[in-house]
């Protein structure tokens, strides 16, 4: 008994590296994902965006994302801190957060899942592999009819 309700399908990409940003946009486009993509360059901006403060109050302009790609190494607030914040807010608790980072460090993986990341993806070493990864993301998180979402 699924009840289908309109859902704002917006993506938020939290990433400070311009190059990575470029390749992510490229990969998302290459995977054929046609959803609005918003970017937060620092952890603090991501928090502001998600909680709708400091210029992000207008939800028409800055809609609440449906899925967040979160880098771990960020200036000011780290990705793990952003994740902890998101999971501490009752209204954000169900938000889909995919960690996308260059680190495969065991402690980072552990912490991210403990804090409630929905997935932990390691940035591939080059663009074509990133494209493949985004196709997988699309297939699983966006086009998957068997996936139940909150």
């Amino acid at each position, binding site marked *: *008994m699924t009840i289908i309700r309109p859902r704002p399908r917006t993506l938020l990409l939290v990433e400070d*590296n311009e190059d*990575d940003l470029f390749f992510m946009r*490229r990969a998302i486009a290459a995977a054929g994902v046609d959803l609005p993509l918003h970017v937060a360059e620092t952890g603090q901006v991501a928090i502001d965006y998600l909680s709708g403060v400091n210029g992000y109050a207008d939800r028409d302009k800055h809609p609440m994302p449906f899925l967040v790609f979160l880098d771990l190494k960020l200036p000011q607030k780290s990705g793990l801190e952003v994740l902890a914040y998101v999971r501490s807010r009752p209204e954000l608790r169900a938000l889909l957060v995919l960690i996308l980072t*260059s680190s495969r460090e065991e402690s980072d993986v552990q912490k991210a899942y403990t804090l409630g990341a929905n997935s932990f993806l390691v940035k591939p070493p*080059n*663009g*074509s592999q990133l494209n493949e990864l985004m196709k997988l993301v699309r297939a699983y998180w966006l086009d998957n009819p068997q996936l139940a979402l909150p």
Partner: protein
Amino acid sequence: MLRVVGVGASAGGLEAFTEFLRAAPTDSNVAYILVQHLDPTHRSLLVELLAKSTSLPVREVTDQMPATPNEVHVIPPNCDLTIMDGVLHLSPREKSSGGSRTIDHFLRTLAADQGDKAVAVILSGAGSDGSEGIKAVKAAGGLTLAQFENDARYDSMPRSAIATGCVDFVLPAEKMPAEIVRTLRRPSGAKKRAATNARKRTGALGKEGSRPFGDDGTDGVDLPPGPADQNLRKIFFLLRGRTGVDFSLYRINTIRRRLERRLGLAKVSDLSEYLQLLRRHPAEIDALYQDLLINVSSFFRNPGVFEALKKRVFPKIVEQHDGSDAVRIWIAGCAMGQEAYSMAIAYSEFASQSGTEVPLQIFATDVNSNTLEWARAGRYTPAQLENVSPARLARHFTRDGENYRVQKVLRDRVVFAPQNLLSHPPFTRLDLISCRNVLIYVESALQQKIIPTFHYALRPAGYLVLGSSESVGQFTNLFESREKSNKIFLKKPAASWLRLARPSALPVRTALDLAGKEPETEFNAHDAQKEADRLTLAKYVPASVLVDETGNILQFRGDTRAYLDLPKGRATFQLMKMARSGLDLPLTRLIQQAKRRNRAVRERGLIVEGRGNAVDLEVVPLRNLKRRCFLVFFYKVDLPPPPAEGRKGRSTRHSADRVAELRAEYARAREHLATLQEAHDTSVEELQSSNEEVQSSNEELQSLNEELETSNEELESSNEELTTLNEELGTRNNELRESERRLREQHQLLELAPVLVRSPKDRILYWNRGAEKLYGFTKDEALGQICHILLGTHFSEPLEAILARLWRDGKWEGEVQQRRKDGTALAIAAQWVVHYDDQGKARAVLEANADISGRKRAEDALRASESFNRSILDSSPDCVCVLDLEGRLQFMTPEALRLMEIEDFRSVAGGFWPNFWEGEHRAAAETAYRAALQGRPARFQALGRRVRGTARWWDVAIRPVVGAQGRPERMLAVARDISDAKQAELSAADALQERGRLYEEAMAARAEVEVLNQVGQSIAAELSADRLTATVARAATRLSRAEFGAFFYNVPVADGRVLSRVSMASDGNGPVPPVALPDEIEAVTRPAHSSSPARFDDLGSELLSDYGSHLRLLANHLAVRSCLVAPVISRSGDVLGALFIGHGKPGMFTERDERMVAGLAAQASVAMDNAHVFDQLERKVEERTERLRETIAELQAFSYTISHDLRAPLRAMQSYAQALKEDHGAELTDGARRYLTRIEVAGLRLDRLIQDVLTYSRVSQGSVAPKEVDLDRLVREIVDQYPNLRAAEAAVTIEGHLPNVLADEASATQCFSNLLGNALKFVPKDRAPRVRIFAQAREKSWKVWIEDNGIGISPDDQERIFKMFERVAADGEYDGTGIGLAIVRKAMERMGGTVGLESDLGQGSRFWLEFSAP
């Protein structure tokens, strides 16, 4: 912090409270306030009774008395007690119509004042007082206790408290104080315990929810008896005006109870005053509104209902569903939403079990929009969720701080909306309506409107669920009961109707007005016009009767005799019965028709049987009347003469007429039948309405019953007051009996002593048995006699003086001589007391006389004997002294004074006898004196001083003089001068002693040397300053025979400060651990800061007068009189400390001791120096280790960051190269494209290099704890999963079963995959790689071999390849970073294993890994 414990008790409470207090500790900082129901007209003995059972002070409360810890405060009778800011206030008790609620009253204020620090205790008692207080205290977060019901003499009070579900602990009274104190000490744990306790208990009782109106706040408010009261009515108006909700049809008893509560809270005494308050303060209206609405609900109330719904109702509903729409459920009266969410949970459980896809929609409504906000939020405290099983809690709730929140999925299923069941339109097309425990709060008239509404709102075959004590009432035509116990009803297919215009008792003002005017008479004007009308009517109007709806005749008009007759049997005015035969049926019919059509109906030509005349009947309904009435006219008709009957054509005409006649008859009969049917319907309706009446009277009976219960409670509470009183009376009775017994004893005692009473004129008025016995005169002989003449009293002073004193003081005491009847003289100690009357006039003199003749005689005898003894003593030639028990001289014979050359012995040495003796002899004297004190005679020889002359030797004997009790009372000391004999004796003894001393000294010196050696050996290796100093102090004390030894020393501590400590040797108080040195001792240790030892022979005479004659170094340790201090100086000349020994006596240490102690100090200084150096070394090592650790940590962080940050630009490089190729490939030359490919390949390699470095650094970190690992499984898994190993040309064989070894699984995996990777990689291009893996058992380990057919490694390189970045193959030929083997070596080292290889160039390599066997 002060805790206030409010204890409520009633009948039987004294016993319980006594038990409670007996167990109460006296130092718990708790103030106990006892609130008991006491007889208002009676002084209470509680305080006295309780004081006997506890050592806590017990006081009756006075106004403004602060609640004092460790005291018991008792409420006085006839008072209400409140507490504010910890101060107790008394107020006169409100005259109450119901039972007393003093306990509730106090506990509520306690909760308000003390909050979560409040403690409430309910002990034995009848009634329900205290339950509300318990709730209040619990709500404030306080602690609540109730007496174990089976222990309480009267259990209804504790039982009712427990039933609230708010009691934390149910305990016997004597266990409570301990629990209270324990809980107060450890608040968090106990609260938790208390909470689970409460939950458990409620579960066990299986109580559903709580009574909605638990409190009967009948605080003396006299409420009007019915809803007709204008004030109540106005209150309803105000309520409806502000909230839109009409309460006039709510149950009046409920409303009155709530109103009483509000009145009590608002402190007003009647409704009109309250009404004023409501008008002034709209907020009070809101408060009243909230109070009136009943918000009691809980999750899964009556769980059986939900089970029934899941098993039997939901399946039916879903089965009937076409799937196009959701299952629609209406929760009417949802309060805080528990019912709605319970329903949603139940449905979702049903849905998941049955797999149905029909969605759910719940409408939850309540008239109170405030609670709807709560309900919508769906947040509940753990207490509210106690009926929810952990599984449901986990599945449907999320934690929200301390509370839980219903999950959004469920919340989305429920729509909350304000809705008044009584006036708003209902939802429609519902599958299920749950309206539980709502109808019980409204009057039955309203219930009758609601049930049809539900019927209307439901789909065909929809279900209705009601509360356990509710029913569909008369509407069995609308609903049939499906499950009686669960109150589940099924909609019957019947016409539904919906009446939106709700009846209300409020807007009926007009009806009321009418009712008020009703008694005004109808026919009171007797004027002429009316009379004229009447006459005219009687004369010209056809005969008629006025009947009411039922056919009862109200009035006869005109002559009706022709149509009506008096029936037989019971007298009646029923028209149908009175109508003559032939008219009755038509009349019935006509009236029915008139009623139905509401207009006049007429029927002609009716034959009145037996009278032969015909009549036309007309029935006219009268309009605009309160009652429906009909006027029945009888018009007389002249019958036409019967037609002439001809034979001819008769039959045909006749038959035609007959047919017409029969037809008419038939039509009439049909009409009649219809009428009968109608009449039948009417009576059914009537039956129903009387049924309703029965129901309503039933309701009334129920409410009466409730009132009876209330008065029963009142009776119980007065009964309980009586019981309390009775208890007190019983106790008081016992006391009376006790005092009577005491009085009797005293009387008997008095009889033993002679007592007489005489008048002021000396005549004897009273003569007791004692007097008879003493004087020999009987009562008869004595009474009336002049006292002094009869007894021959002889006074030792003039009688006038005695009498003067007697009258002045009111009493006289003295000794007189009197005579017995037989003439013997008596010495009498007399006590006279004047007895005055009310006016203060002397009425009599009481004489209590004691015979002291015997004592007098004994005194005389004693005096004589003493003078005899004295004369004996005086004649002794020795120095005879008498001492008191303190050792002071009491008496010396004249000879003694002469011998000692003393004139007044009190002036010598403070009169203290031991002071007469010199030096060591003084001790002997004291010993002897002590022995004598304990009753033993003693003897000694001693040198004693004479006052003027030289000291002389005395032979002294001292013995106790034992008194009457067998204890020494004083002492007798006799000293004889033996100076001449003593002189000769001493000179011989001296020579002998000198020899002995020399020998002893030699032996002692030898022992000392041994001890010193031992000490030297034991401290040489000692590193702990504490142990070292203790050893030295002990040795010094032992060797110098000191009583006390201490080693003061300085310990440098971390921040450069120096801590002074002292190690002490035993001084009789046992071994002493080193302690920090008290500041005030510095004065003593100061001499030690010189470089050589110092000796003090008598601290009393030298030095430190501040310390008195003795020096006490530390509290509780020996006071020393002589001492020796030796400094402990290091090689560098610093003073490290000082060695100190002391003795309680002066002059105990010799120069030899000094040398010995100095030697020990020197040894100690060397040892301490050693220890110090060692200590410094150790600290340095620690510091370096710490620095190393930091460096390692920094390096790890560095490598992590570097590797991580290196990858980002690398990724960018590669990706841009790819992007360039993809996006601009066409524009590029082949060469450019090749370069791009090279960039990519280089990037990939660098990335792998970074990852390898990362792995290496991870492997280097710390150590692992090897566990038993199944190598066989591990290696086979690697081979299966490693893609290169599965390549078609590669052949990997594992020989046999690989063993279990001690390893770390992750590290071992790393090693094997690296080695296998190498084995496949370093193979010439023309050769197919072949790998063989096998294990070899060693003594305590396993060697696992990995053999390949690759290019091999020359022996020269075999060590080098395990180093970082070392590669043997030429660059470019074989891919690799040169780190793989370094990782393997590191990982193996970490697991405690080794790695190695055997190889030759071109021959392939055999790598081995050696693991420990498990």
